[in-house]
């Protein structure tokens, strides 16, 4: 009996020791310079690892830039420098709340940035709100997150409900006789919210929706769909989902020689690697949060009565290319823009206190290389992005036959005329 008791006690002691080893302490800051900790999770593994990696690259670049520029100087003489604290969320929700709680409490993060994707962000928002931390979301477009009554969550992206509407506008400007549209979309949270809003918008504008159908996120073979599209005979195809399925869909549309005048797909076309599709990419358009050729400038900001902060799109693209040796996608730009939003709010608030920064964020009326940024401040849609709008890109062949991604909408920022009809 005594051996058993001993064993129980022994095991309990081991557990207790393990627990105390878990509890760590973190050091404070000193003097005139203060380090502001920015906490976030990134998907280093799992299905989001590419987009999420670019997003954290963008954020990291902002942080390097601001620190290299000497940080932010507050009026009381404190100099703020920034440091990142991040964990791998493995592209799934299991640990998001655990990691964000850790960031908010143990790591004493002053501000939070969202994970990539709407689903993970929704889980993180609960924690941000609960611990009274401001969280800038990027890579999280779903509107629903901003309709749950959060007060400290701010969205950098154009929300899902306005993702495809600019494509509808573009189509309307190109051809008044094209009236039949087909919506074919990935049956997932993000794309479904996008097309539902776009469908309502299109119907309102007098379009006839001849096909409205989702496909499973794992779909590789779109031929059954394409046969169905052919039977419906639309003028335009709108939809898609993420990179994998979008590029597969575009490739198979081309292989099957489908006669449509206009194709606009989510997420995939703005990615530089979409060019790997070769001929299948020609003519495919898609909404983008940002493009390297986007022409937002200090002058434009002034004309619109907005503040301007940071670098220009070309500078951003060049620096990013040098640093990470790849062309930046809008995920990277979104990461950098999230940093700029914080920087602007901290400067305006002249403080890192949550309540003051929140007030400054509410009052944001900013233009950056990423575009205009402004938040809804009403109670039921607080934090929803209302300033930013989508660009439409289209893949075209230039005079020497190379595939290039051109901006075709809005016409004020266009780098080329739209190719229409595409086939």
């Amino acid at each position, binding site marked *: 009996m005594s051996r058993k008791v001993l064993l129980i006690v022994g095991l309990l002691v081991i557990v207790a020791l393990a627990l105390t080893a878990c509890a760590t302490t973190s050091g404070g800051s000193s003097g005139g310079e203060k380090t502001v900790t920015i906490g976030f999770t990134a998907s280093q*593994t*799992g*299905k*989001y*690892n*590419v987009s999420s*990696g670019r997003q954290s690259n963008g954020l990291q670049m902002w942080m390097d830039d601001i620190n290299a520029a000497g940080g932010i100087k507050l009026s009381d003489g404190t100099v703020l420098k920034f440091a990142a604290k991040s964990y791998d969320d493995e592209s799934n929700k299991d640990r998001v709340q655990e990691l964000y709680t850790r960031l908010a409490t143990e790591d004493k993060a002053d501000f939070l940035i969202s994970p990539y994707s709407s689903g993970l962000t929704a889980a993180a928002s609960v924690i941000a709100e609960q611990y009274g931390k401001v969280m800038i979301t990027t890579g999280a477009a779903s509107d629903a997150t901003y309709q749950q009554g959060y007060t400290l969550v701010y969205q950098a992206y154009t929300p899902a409900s306005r993702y495809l509407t600019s494509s509808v506008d573009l189509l309307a400007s190109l051809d008044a006789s094209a009236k039949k549209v087909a919506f074919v979309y990935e*049956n997932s949270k993000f794309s479904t919210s996008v097309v539902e809003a776009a469908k309502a918008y299109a119907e309102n504008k007098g379009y006839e929706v001849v096909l409205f*159908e*989702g*496909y*499973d996120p*794992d*779909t*590789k*073979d779109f*031929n*059954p*769909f394409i*046969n*169905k599209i*052919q*039977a419906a005979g639309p003028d335009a195809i709108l939809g898609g989902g993420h*990179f*994998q399925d979008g*590029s*597969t869909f575009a*490739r198979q549309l081309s*292989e*099957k*020689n489908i006669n449509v005048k206009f194709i606009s797909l989510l997420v995939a076309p703005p990615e530089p*690697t979409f060019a*790997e*599709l*070769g001929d299948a990419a020609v003519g495919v358009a898609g909404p983008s949060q940002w493009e390297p050729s986007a022409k937002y400038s200090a002058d434009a900001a002034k004309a619109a009565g907005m503040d301007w902060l940071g670098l220009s799109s070309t500078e951003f693209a060049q620096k990013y290319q040098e640093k990470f040796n790849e062309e930046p996608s809008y995920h990277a730009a979104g990461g950098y823009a999230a940093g700029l939003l914080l920087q602007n709010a901290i400067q305006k608030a002249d403080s890192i206190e949550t309540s003051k920064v929140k007030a400054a964020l509410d009052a944001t009326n900013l233009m950056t290389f990423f575009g205009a940024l402004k938040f809804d401040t009403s109670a039921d849609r607080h934090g929803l992005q209302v300033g930013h709008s989508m660009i439409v890109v289209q893949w075209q062949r230039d005079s020497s036959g190379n595939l290039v991604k051109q901006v075709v909408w809005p016409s004020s920022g266009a780098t080329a005329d739209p190719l229409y009809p595409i086939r």
Partner: protein
Amino acid sequence: MANVLLASVIDGLLIGFVYGIAAMGLTLIFGVMDVVNLAHGPIIALGMFGVYLLFSLLGINPFIALILVAILGLLFGLLMYMVAVHRVIEAPPLSSLLSTFSVNMMIIGIGTSLFTTSSYNVEYSLGTVNVGSITVTGTRLSASLIAVLVTALLYWFLYRTRPGKYIRAVANNRTSAELMGIPSTRVLALSFGIGTMLAAIAGALIATIFPINILAGGSYELKSFVIVVMGGLGNPLGALIGGLILGLIEGVVPVFIKTTWVPVLEFLLFIIILLVRPQGILGTKE
């Protein structure tokens, strides 16, 4: 309508052959040693990346690269059998499920750090074939032809060669095969190798048709489960026919109902067949 239906039937059948090859690998392994290889999906993905790398780095034609990939697939299977499967072959099913799953984790882990999860394209086209209003792509057509060829070769091997006959003998009754002097360890390793080779070939064929990524094997693994159950676990020809049936379902059903209901239907069918005819549609009652 008739046109859509015909086009869907053809598309479904063509892809069905490729599904069939993928499932054949799984079913062969199960038939011989009662092991469900949970690394099946990642091995399919390895086949995809094999073709991709050979094609994009060395410029080797995908259909020639296929042969190399098949050999590598065989070697990988032999190695995997010796390291991860042999010790648990007599243990309860859980052990082999977990040991093959651990290989799955290793492949995906290393694969993700090498290739990330982004998608890659084998930029190779054989043009299209038009028959009336129906368009079929060349790569899809050749993929299904190769799938038929591979099936024929497999059957020739199993029924006409000595190692093949050994495999069938071991599948039938390992103990008596051993009593007859058949080297069962080597035969088991060989069958495992052929199973993974088929998976790698399936991956290689898929890479010529669809964009690929390291996680893409997962959905083919799930499809393979459905297929092998339809065809009867352990029955390679059944797997091919199961593949065709699944291809047909995926091709034709969306003509009539929303495509997102197809997986519901597939998995319900899967469960029903398991319950009503666990020996498969083709199988005979034991």
